[in-house]
């Protein structure tokens, strides 16, 4: 069963290369807009660029998780999930992971290149990478949760971000604080541990929460 699910997920993503490359292109477009607006002042950019990268990643995750279940809902796949005796939590877990692998991981892989472009120091670049690796799975799961929550509504394009961005705040606070700590030379292990704790807290709970939310959405 697991094999079949993984195979299907891979097939769906590789047949829609859009869903892999568009978030990446979006990420670079938004990043390149900032120097256009703020000017090329190196000191200013050097100060705010970690924050800009994080904001851009948030927008990218919002974009890719916004309509996560829409097609499944339209095609009736959700109903099949809920009336099946297979372990739906496992299926949903794999779907979260594959969404992260195909939409966030490409962005994370390109962070070193971004660091070169904006002349970010190695230390700062490493901490950005680390916080992104720990933070984005949480952001993606919360985004998917939001998309499940607004499934029954007809027009939910803006509503989902409005609901979920407040839940992003803990991840954002500790990521920003870790980056800040590194740039002024303070220890940052506490923030990293908290991000790790959020990750291992959210990821196992999310499939169960998603199943319950999908049941509610079907039941509207």
């Amino acid at each position, binding site marked *: 069963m697991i094999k079949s699910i993984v195979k299907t997920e891979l*097939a769906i993503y590789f047949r829609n290369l859009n869903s892999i490359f568009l978030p990446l292109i979006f990420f670079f477009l938004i990043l390149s807009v900032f120097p256009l607006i703020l000017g090329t002042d190196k000191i200013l950019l050097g100060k705010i660029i970690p924050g800009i990268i994080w904001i851009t990643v948030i927008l990218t995750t919002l974009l890719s998780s916004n309509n996560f279940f829409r097609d499944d809902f339209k*095609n*009736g796949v959700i109903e*099949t999930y809920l009336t099946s005796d297979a372990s739906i939590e496992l299926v949903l877990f794999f779907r979260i992971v594959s969404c992260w692998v195909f939409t966030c991981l490409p962005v994370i892989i390109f962070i070193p290149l971004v660091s070169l472009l904006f002349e970010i120091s190695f230390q700062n670049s490493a901490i950005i990478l680390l916080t992104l690796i720990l933070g984005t799975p949480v952001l993606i799961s919360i985004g998917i949760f939001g998309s499940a929550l607004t499934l029954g509504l007809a027009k939910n394009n803006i509503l989902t971000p409005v609901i979920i961005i407040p839940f992003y705040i803990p991840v954002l606070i500790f990521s920003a604080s870790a980056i800040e700590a590194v740039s002024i030379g303070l220890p940052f292990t506490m923030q990293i541990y908290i991000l790790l704790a959020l990750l291992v807290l959210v990821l196992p709970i999310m499939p169960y929460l998603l199943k319950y939310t999908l049941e509610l959405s079907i039941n*509207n």
Partner: protein
Amino acid sequence: MTNNIEISVNSAACYKNNNIIFKDINILLNNREILVVTGPNGCGKTTLIQSICGIQNLESGHISLNKVNIQHQECNYLENILYIGHKNSLNDDLTVLENLDYLCAFDSSADSKDTKLIRKSMEYFNISKYEDYMVSQLSEGNKRRVALARLFLTKKKIWLLDEPLNNLDDETTKVLIKLFIRHQDNQGLIILSSHFDLSKELNNVKIFKMENQSD
């Protein structure tokens, strides 16, 4: 496993947004029986079938399988039912074969590893030539046939079908009815909604007529 299956719906009522969908529904059904739910559009056929699936909550009343409420854990209800809604539950980006393989993963009674059996089911519904077609390329009728091919693969005893005859031509309808008869012979039970009267083609058919409530 016992061969006896009995589904009962007791004084079920369902509301959506304070509108009454149906009320006072009582159904008793044993194996080898087929229940055909008929009624005008919007009378709640889909909602009733979804309630019997357990994905739609009832306002009052309850549904039980062998006298155990289907909401109870020990009922193992989902292990016994196969639901095919009026949406076909097919993924547009997968081929016909991949779709059936994927759907088998959600049905513990089907031999999901057996591609031969999946090919046989496609032959049965005469869609073998579309094996490597994307579902998005198929016509509505052919999509319906792909969805119904799951019936050939499953060994579950209770089939819940929402408008299975929609978009089907006469020939496929006959194929489907043959499959229904085979299922009856295997002690199965079918609940389906339809506008057609199937009592001529099938034995043991119960007709359940629903009325529009919101007038």
